């Protein structure tokens, strides 16, 4: 066991990004950390808690105490599986420390165990907070429905606390088990791509189950979902109750204060972890051998037909960045395909809310020209544009992604300015089309006229530009280049997290100005729209002028 602990500590020390601790940069980082916490973590938790509260309250009226909480914990577990799959896969089989660790005189299940616990600690912080908020939301609804007596017993509270920490174990253990099994079953395929499609496959399976739970209900929307939850006929809930079989036990412990259920819950998790370790004992070594022998098919090279044309420096730099982005799985999914979230998300949102009275009512008000509805829509769009531009962390990891070879920026004879513009261009080329698509889809559903569609495209461009400049400035100030695998380049990198926080503050600031001008001045809603666009353009100009200088200086001082 001591070996596992030692390894775990080494992984942890290695994972942490060195941050400036002293001086102005140090205080800035502390401030960013605080902002990130208050602007990302807290709002997320509040929203999740509130949703749980509303859903639980609605179901409790129909005498169904636990299904709301259960279905939400299941959704979190499903997401956790989908997102952890590739992470676990990389951590187990493809991180660059693999070759050093394998040679240590440790058994493979110990290696696996250290990696597993480290990943669990590193990946689950956000999940802990979200789960905690869900439990709080649930308790709030329960107290309101049934009174504090009997709802807040010691076992219930203990169960919620334990559940917060232990629930993320199961999905992660499943991912590990799945990786181990896949690696040995697919050994013959010897092609790395197959492995990477697993998480897409998982996503599709869960989405399919989720959609199937609406069958026979005449439409995919929130009301139907709630009805099927209340009736206990929800297929997603039923399947997940079996798949994440410990969650209903936890539900029982939280709902009725059963110590036995709590005990069974812990036992269930322990059993799965033991199975995982046993499988690791059986399969991990073999899997590592397979992973180390993967490769693509060798092509025959015809020396006379090599493509050797001259491309401009700017274009070749962009091409290089795009190739690296698309060919590195971690970047492809977290920086590239993640942009599809917005166009797809908006379709899902509008089709789910097709029968939702509140949203339909709101849209009717908007279409009738009720200006407060227009204001709310404007605020939502401003906020989403900012978040969408920051979420893919393309600009906030632009330098970090260079990795150990960040030197290349310095010794090639390309002006820093050109390299900076190329990096910015990549972020723009990848993100903006997705934003435009989102606006067009929204305009289709909401019924914007062409000028409004163009206006929102321009708004998104301004927000994106601002976010790119800020991301590049922050990442160039202290790039985190000593990572072991590309996932830690993204996740171990505090810059992208802090960048998100700064962007959110900015979004709140711009939204605040829009709101206050509308409420406190006689300006109508159209002038407010124009005012915001002008404000963003001015901010962009300032950001470009100063950001350019800052980034160039940072690039010069890089090291």
């Amino acid at each position: 066991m001591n070996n596992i602990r030692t390894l775990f500590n080494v992984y942890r020390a290695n994972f942490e990004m060195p941050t400036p601790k002293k001086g102005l940069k140090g205080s800035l980082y502390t401030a960013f950390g605080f902002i990130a916490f208050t602007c990302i973590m807290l709002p997320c938790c509040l929203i999740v808690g509130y949703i749980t509260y509303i859903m639980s309250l609605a179901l409790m009226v129909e005498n169904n105490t636990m299904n709301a909480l259960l279905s939400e914990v299941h959704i979190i577990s499903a997401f956790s599986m989908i997102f952890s799959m590739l992470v676990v896969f990389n951590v187990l089989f493809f991180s660059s420390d693999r070759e050093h660790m394998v040679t240590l005189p440790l058994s493979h299940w110990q290696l696996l165990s250290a990696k597993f616990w480290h990943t669990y600690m590193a990946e689950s912080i956000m999940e802990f907070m979200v789960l905690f908020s869900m439990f709080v939301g649930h308790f709030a609804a329960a107290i309101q429905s049934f009174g504090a007596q009997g709802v807040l017993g010691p076992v219930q509270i203990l169960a919620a606390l334990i559940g917060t920490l232990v629930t993320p174990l199961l999905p992660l253990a499943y991912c590990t088990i799945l990786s181990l099994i896949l690696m040995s079953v697919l050994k013959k395929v010897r092609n790395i791509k197959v492995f990477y499609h697993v998480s897409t496959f998982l996503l599709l399976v869960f989405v399919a189950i989720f959609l199937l739970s609406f069958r026979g209900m005449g439409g995919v929307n929130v009301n139907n979902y709630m009805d099927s939850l209340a009736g206990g006929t929800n297929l997603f809930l039923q399947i997940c109750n079996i798949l994440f079989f410990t969650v209903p036990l936890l539900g029982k412990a939280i709902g009725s204060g059963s110590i036995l259920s709590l005990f069974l819950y812990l036992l269930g998790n322990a059993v799965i972890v033991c199975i995982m370790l046993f499988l690791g004992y059986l399969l991990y070594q073999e899997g590592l051998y397979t992973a180390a022998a993967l490769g693509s098919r060798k092509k025959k090279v015809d020396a006379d037909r090599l493509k050797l044309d001259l491309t401009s420096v700017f274009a070749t730099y962009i091409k290089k960045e795009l190739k690296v982005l698309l060919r590195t799985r971690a970047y492809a999914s977290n920086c590239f395909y993640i942009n599809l979230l917005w166009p797809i998300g908006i379709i899902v949102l509008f089709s789910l809310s097709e029968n939702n009275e509140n949203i339909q009512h709101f849209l009717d008000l908007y279409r009738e020209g009720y200006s407060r509805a227009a204001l709310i829509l404007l605020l939502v769009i401003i906020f989403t544009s900012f978040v969408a531009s920051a979420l893919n962390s393309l600009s906030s990891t632009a330098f970090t992604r260079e990795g150990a070879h960040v030197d290349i920026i310095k010794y090639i004879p390309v002006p820093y300015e050109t390299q900076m513009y190329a990096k910015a261009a990549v972020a723009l080329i990848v993100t903006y089309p997705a934003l435009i698509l989102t606006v067009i889809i929204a305009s289709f559903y909401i019924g914007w006229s062409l000028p409004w569609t163009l206006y929102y495209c321009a708004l998104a461009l301004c927000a994106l530009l601002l976010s790119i400049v800020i991301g590049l400035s922050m990442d160039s100030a202290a790039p985190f280049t000593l990572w072991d695998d590309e996932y830690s380049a993204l996740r171990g990198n505090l810059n992208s997290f802090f960048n998100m926080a700064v962007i959110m503050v900015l979004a709140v600031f711009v939204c605040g100005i829009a709101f206050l001008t509308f409420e406190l001045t006689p300006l109508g809603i159209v002038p407010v729209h124009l005012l915001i666009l002008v404000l963003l353009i001015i901010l962009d100009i300032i950001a470009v002028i100063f950001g350019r200088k800052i980034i160039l200086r940072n690039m010069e001082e890089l090291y």
Partner: protein
Amino acid sequence: MDNTSIQDNTLIQAENLSMIYGSDHKAVDDMSFSSKAGEIVGFAGPNGAGKTTVIKMLTGILRPVTGRALIAGHDIVKEPLAAKQSFAYVADNPDVLLQLTGLEYINFVADIYKIPAEDRAPRVKDLAARFGMSDALETPMREYSHGMRQKLMVIAALTHNPPAWILDEPMTGLDPSAAYELKQMMREHAAKGNCVLFSTHVLEVAEKLCDHIIIMNGGHSLYQGTVEDLSAAHPGQDLEEIFLDMISYKKGE
């Protein structure tokens, strides 16, 4: 443009270079040397002596705390682009942009140095053939062996064939035939009136190849001059013995 350097054909010139890592770790202290057209200069010294640090200051990766570095007469800090156009650099770690295929990497570098397609094709074919890499050009570099990566870095650097070559431990990991080819190329390159500066731990290579060697330890230069002069000053000792004497002498101080 520094006219004096052009006149006496100095291609690489280091003047009083010092480097401090962190707040007080002096890795290189007041190094000066120069390397003229037609010369091969070898850098020797124990691990941590500061060789890579000096090379990084020459190539613009590190900014010297004091002193300056000139490549083909251009100050690397003040005229970085002109200076960078004039050298090829092979880093001590060849793991660069491993997602690209060898050919894509070569094309990237050649585009950066603006090598026209008609010059590029014959050079790449020739270099790849000499290093036995022709069949690996369209394979992603992450599937290369260490030595193959090293060879590819050399091929890419030499495709743009600038006056100065700066190579940090270029022989590490090369098989005997590749090492032979590289040494041969270094000689050819110098003979055409260019200069080559490289660091190495293999003293025999330095002895056979270099017109000029620089031995450094603890950030200081211990010896600069020809191998013959060094041997003459220490009769009866081979280069290895001289080297060991030099660095342990420093240690005992």
